[in-house]
C-alpha cells in the first residue's frame, strides 16, 4: 500500500495522507487532478470498486469536500480520495464515465448540496425531493428545526420547565438579582 502511495506521489500531488486503519487510507488530492487520479488507480492499481461518493460541507472554510471511497479486492484495502472545491463556485467535473453508477451519487449531491456536475446523466432530475423550493437541504446552513417548525403542525399544549429556573421561582425568587458580568450571547 505504501509503495502504491509512493508511486502515486510521483505522478500527482497528494496534499494529505492519513492511514486510519490497516485497511483504510485517506488521501487528499487537487481538484484538477481528480479524473487523472481516479482513472489511474482504477485501471492500474486495481481500486476497481467504488463504495460511494459523497459530499461534506465545510461551511466555516467555505468549502465542500467530495470523497470517492474506493476498494481494491486484491489488496483488501479501502481508499478514500477527497477533493476540496470552492463552496461559492460549486462545480465539479463529472466522473460518470469511470463508473457507470456514479451518476446516481452526482445526482443526489446536486440535489442535496447544490454541487453541479455538468454533463452527468439525469443530473437535473429530481431524485428524492420532488418540487423542493428551499436551499439544498444537506448544506450546513439549512436549519432543519426552523424548517420543520414552519412547515409542520406542532402539537399544542406542550410546555416544559427548566429545573434551575423553576427552583429559583419556587425557592428563592426574592434573592437579589446578580450583576451581569458576562456578555449576553
Amino acid at each position, binding site marked *: 500500500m505504501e509503495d502504491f502511495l509512493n508511486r502515486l506521489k510521483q505522478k500527482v500531488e497528494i496534499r494529505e495522507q492519513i492511514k486510519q486503519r490497516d485497511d483504510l487510507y485517506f488521501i487528499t488530492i487537487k481538484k484538477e487532478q481528480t479524473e487523472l487520479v481516479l482513472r489511474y488507480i482504477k485501471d492500474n492499481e486495481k481500486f476497481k470498486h467504488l463504495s460511494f461518493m459523497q459530499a461534506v460541507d465545510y461551511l466555516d472554510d467555505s468549502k465542500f469536500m467530495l470523497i470517492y471511497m474506493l476498494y481494491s479486492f486484491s489488496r483488501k484495502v479501502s481508499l478514500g480520495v477527497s477533493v476540496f472545491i470552492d463552496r461559492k463556485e460549486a462545480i465539479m467535473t463529472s466522473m460518470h464515465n469511470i463508473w457507470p453508477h456514479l451518476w446516481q451519487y452526482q445526482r443526489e449531491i446536486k440535489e442535496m448540496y447544490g454541487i453541479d456536475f455538468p454533463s452527468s446523466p439525469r443530473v437535473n432530475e429530481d431524485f428524492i425531493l420532488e418540487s423542493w423550493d428551499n436551499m439544498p437541504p444537506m448544506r450546513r446552513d439549512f436549519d432543519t428545526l426552523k424548517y420543520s417548525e414552519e412547515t409542520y403542525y406542532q*402539537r399544542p*399544549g*406542550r*410546555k*416544559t*420547565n*427548566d*429545573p*434551575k*429556573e*423553576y*427552583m*429559583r421561582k*419556587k*425557592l*428563592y425568587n*426574592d*434573592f*437579589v*438579582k*446578580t*450583576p*451581569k*458580568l*458576562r456578555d449576553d450571547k
Partner: protein
Amino acid sequence: MSLKDVLSPFKVWERAARKPWTVKNPIDERKGSANYRGFHKNDLEKCIGCGTCEDICQNLAIDLVPVENVETNMGDSGLRPMIDYGRCCWCALCVDVCPTGSLNMSNEYNWIEEEAEGFRFIPGADKKSWDDSDKGYHQSDDIQLIDPARIVMEELEAEERKSTFVEMVKGYSKEKALLEAERCLECGICVARCPAHMDIPEYIKAIREDDIELAVKILYETNPFSASCGRICTHSCEEVCALAHNGEPIAIRWLKRYIMDQVTPDQIKEIITNNIQVNNKKIAIIGAGPGGLSAAYYLRLLGYEISVYESKTKGGGMLRYGIPEYRLPYDQLDKDIDYIASLGVQINYGKEIGKDLSFDELYGNFDAIYFSIGLEKPTSLRCVGEDLDSVVAGVDFLRDITDGKRPDIGNDVVVIGGGNVAMDVARTSIRLGANVTVLYRRRIEDMPADLEEITEAQEENVIFNPQSLQTKIEKAKSGRLLLQWNNMKMVEDPEGDRPKPIPIEGDLESKEFDTIFSAIGQKADLSFISEKYEEKMKFKWGKAVTNQFGQTDIPKVFAGGDVKNWTADAVSAIADGHSAAKGIDEFLQKR
C-alpha cells in the same frame, strides 16, 4: 428442470396437518419479555426532576412539569417527566441515563385510549396498570452512560502533611478539570442549594469549553470570594448533585478552585472591568470578613463609597484567622481581597469599633452601616477549672498561628468540641508535633464538622474520644492539667429527634494534658454597639434578627454573616453580604 422439480413441492403437503403457529389470545398469552422496552414507569419518590431524561431524548418527547403532591425542595425540583407517546421511540436512553434510577420501563405494550391526548402522561403520577410491574427494561450496572466516579483529587499523604502547613489539596490539572467538568449533567439543582445561588452549571460548562475568562465572570457575579470558597466552602451543593444519588457528586468546589487557580490577581482585574458610577453616599462596614467584604463589593459596584473597619491587621475574618493555612493559603485569600480593594473599597485595618471609633460616630457620619462581625467570643466549657492557664480557646490559638506565632502547647493536648474549629485546632496541633485527643459528647457521626475534616484528622492520627463530657479540670502534681470526663451513653429521643447523650453515672475517666483547647462554639461579641442602639435591635439566641435583606429594626443598620444566619459558613456570609447590598441600596434609593 425435471419431473423431480414438478413433484418436489408436493412433498410438503404434510405441513397442512401440523399445528398452526398462531397464538389464539395474544394479549393474555403473549406478554412482553422480561427485558421488553414497554411503557414507562417512574418512582416519584426517587425522581428528583433533574431533567436529564429530557436532555437525552432525541425526539423531544419529554417535558418537565409540576406534579401534585410533589414539593419543590433543595434537592428536588418538584418537576416530573411527562412523556409524549406521539414522539417517543422507546429507545430507553432516558432509562439508561437517569441519575437516580427512578425512570424505568415495564414490559406492557397494550394501551387503548379514546383520546389521543391520553398518550401524553406523567409516569408514576398518572396511575397505570403497569406501574407495579417488575418486568421490563430496567437500568443496569452493566452500562454507564454517565460517569458515576469522581476524578480523584491529589492530596498530600497523611504522613507528609502532619509536619507542614503547605496546602494539602493539590488542585486539578487542566486535563483532570476538563474530565471532571465533563461529568456534569447541567440539571441546575445545585443552584438552589448554594446559599449564594452561584450559577454552577454555567461555570462548569465554561470550564468544559476552556473559557476561563467567562468562568471567572460567572463566579464574580455571585461570589467575590471564589478563590477561598473554591478551597474551604462547605459545598452543600454537592450534597444535592444529581450524580450523588448513584455515585459521587461533581467536585463543584474543586472546579471553582480550578478556575481561580488559572488566573493571577492582575488577570482578574483585566477580565472583570466594571464601569462604576460613583455616587456620594457613604456606607460603613464593620468587619472585613467574607460577609463584610462581599457587601462592600456589591455596594461598590452600585457606586457607593465604602469604608470597611477591621480590628485586626489583615482582612478575611475567619477565613484568615479561623481556617489554617494548609486548607486555605493566605495568598489565595489575598487574591480575593485585593480585587475587592482594587475597586476603590477603603479598608481600614486595626480600627476597632467601640475602641478606636465609636458606633455613634459611624452612625452619624454614614448613610448606612452593615456589620458582619462573625463569632469570635468562645463559649464557656461550663466546668470547674476552665479559667486555669493552659486552658486555651481554640479560636485564639488559631489566630496566634495565623499571626505567625508558634505557641508552646506541649506534647499532649486535648481539644474539646466536634465542630470544624475543633478539627482545625486538632490538626494544627498535630502539625506542631503534639499528640492530640478530641473529646466530644456525642458520637463521631453526630459531629457538626465536615466529614472530610474528620476523616483527614483521623488520617493524621488524631485520637477521637467521643461520648465524653468534660466535668473538671485541675492542676496535677506534675504541673500539667488533669482533665476529668464522664462517659456518656446515647438514648433514643422519644420525640424522634437525634439520640441524646446522657452521662453514665460514676463512669469517670481522667488524663493529664499539657494544653486543653476549648472549641465547643463561639458567639458574637456585641460590646461595640452602644447601649442605646443595642436596645433597639433585636437579638435572638445571640443572633441578630433582620428582614431578608439584613435590615435590623434600626433602618440604617444592617447585619449579616455568622452574626445573623444559622449556617455560619463563609458562603452564607457572602450571600448575606449580597442581599444586604441590595437591601441597603433599596433603603438609600427610597430615602
